């Protein structure tokens, strides 16, 4: 039986992880390689490196980080955040990424999704959607959630699938950073409309939030950052919790 996936997100700037990490015994809390190694030992199923940089110099540091992480981790690695063109995607993949995640670039240039899927295969192309609740639905947000688009999140997800995306990384802007739980209604609306997997993101605060998003939320995978920093063995403890609720996980 296909396991529900747990994905850890590392926000990286200039070669270092920027979100607070407090593992005891970690030589350098900001070292993405050290952190990735720790997550891997704890049983994380995938990693996402999110580039939160702005400059070209920092982007070059990112390539070195991707190479260093992928050299010793044999689990899928996705890179997102700064992929604006086919050239950026090629640089990330050449450095060792298995998948690239497109957000604003896919909105601005939808055929880019198709082009990348033709070059690397759909399995390498993730479309990230930031969605905000509005009226009875969800509006797609661009530029790191800063500006609203005219698109409906469910419709854009369907379109992304038709363009050749292999997975959807769906973030609730309303829940992101709140630790109030995933927006399971949003996740279920998108997951129920697609044939490709949906990764839920935004709002993880407790282990039960993951149970909810994998059951009522119909998510195929869940992504989080800070919740995995609670304790040294958070991933393992979370998997035990999920298995106890009858959810299939990789052990």
């Amino acid at each position, binding site marked *: *039986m*296909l*396991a529900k*996936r747990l994905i850890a997100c590392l926000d990286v700037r200039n070669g270092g992880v920027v979100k607070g990490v407090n593992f005891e015994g970690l030589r350098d809390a900001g070292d993405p390689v050290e952190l990735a190694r720790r997550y*891997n030992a704890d049983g994380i*199923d995938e990693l996402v490196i999110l580039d939160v940089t702005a400059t070209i110099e920092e982007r070059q540091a990112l390539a070195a980080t991707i190479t260093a992480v*992928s*050299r*010793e981790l*044999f*689990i*899928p690695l996705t890179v997102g955040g700064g992929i604006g063109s086919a050239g950026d995607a090629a640089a990330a*993949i*050449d*450095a*060792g990424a*298995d998948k690239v995640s497109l957000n604003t670039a896919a909105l601005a240039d939808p055929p880019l999704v198709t082009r990348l899927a033709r070059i*690397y*295969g*759909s*399995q*390498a192309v993730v479309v990230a959607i930031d969605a905000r609740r509005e009226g009875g639905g969800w509006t797609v947000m661009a530029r790191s959630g800063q500006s609203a688009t005219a698109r409906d999140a469910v419709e854009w997800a369907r379109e992304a699938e038709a363009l050749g995306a*292999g*997975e959807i990384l769906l973030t609730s802007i309303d829940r992101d950073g709140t630790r109030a739980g995933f927006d399971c209604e949003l996740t279920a609306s998108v997951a129920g409309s*697609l*044939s*490709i*997997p949906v990764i839920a993101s935004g709002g993880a605060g407790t282990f039960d939030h993951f149970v909810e998003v994998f059951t009522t939320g*119909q998510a*195929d*995978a869940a992504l989080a950052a800070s919740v995995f920093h609670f304790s040294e063995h958070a991933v393992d403890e979370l998997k035990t919790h999920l298995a106890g609720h009858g959810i299939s996980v*990789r*052990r």
Partner: protein
Amino acid sequence: MQIALIDYGAGNLTSVRKGVAAAGAELVTPSRPDELARCAGMVVPGVGHFAATSSVHQAWRSAIVARVEAGVPLLGICLGMQWLFEGSAEAPDVPGLGLLEGRCLRIEAERPLKVPHVGWNSLSVIRADGILDGVDDGTHVYFTHSYAAPLTRDCSASVIHGQAFAAVVQRDHVAGVQFHPEKSGAAGVRILRNFIGMTRG
């Protein structure tokens, strides 16, 4: 001795290269079919559409088959495993290598199951030797595919996603894995190491 990675332009080889290197082999990417004569093993990777295998020209196909007939181990990964069979419904006009009998078909799975089959799924090990030496029944490995190879006598491990299909095949020194060993954690590295062991006799 070196192991040849057959690069036919389908997708990204960086991960496979790193995985095989981590398992202890020296990899080369031959630019001409006759260079296969210097290699102790061959790895055919691949992601994407079965039609992509048609870019493996006849000279390469002949050279690969000739080396297999000479006893050189071959490992097909994902699309590379499907290519070992006679063909695939994904591209009915494109012949496979035909080293194993059977044709690949689209996975039949109903909602809530999804196609493509993406993620970690557990192996049902049928033969725990050869390429699967040291790999426990129930081990999770990372899949990403929409078409699958049939269960035949060459199947060493199966997997279920809507239906059962082949996850690992092996006949003598010809082996294939539907999943990505280079993305499957310690078990995947073990499988690559087993293959490298086959190339060392």
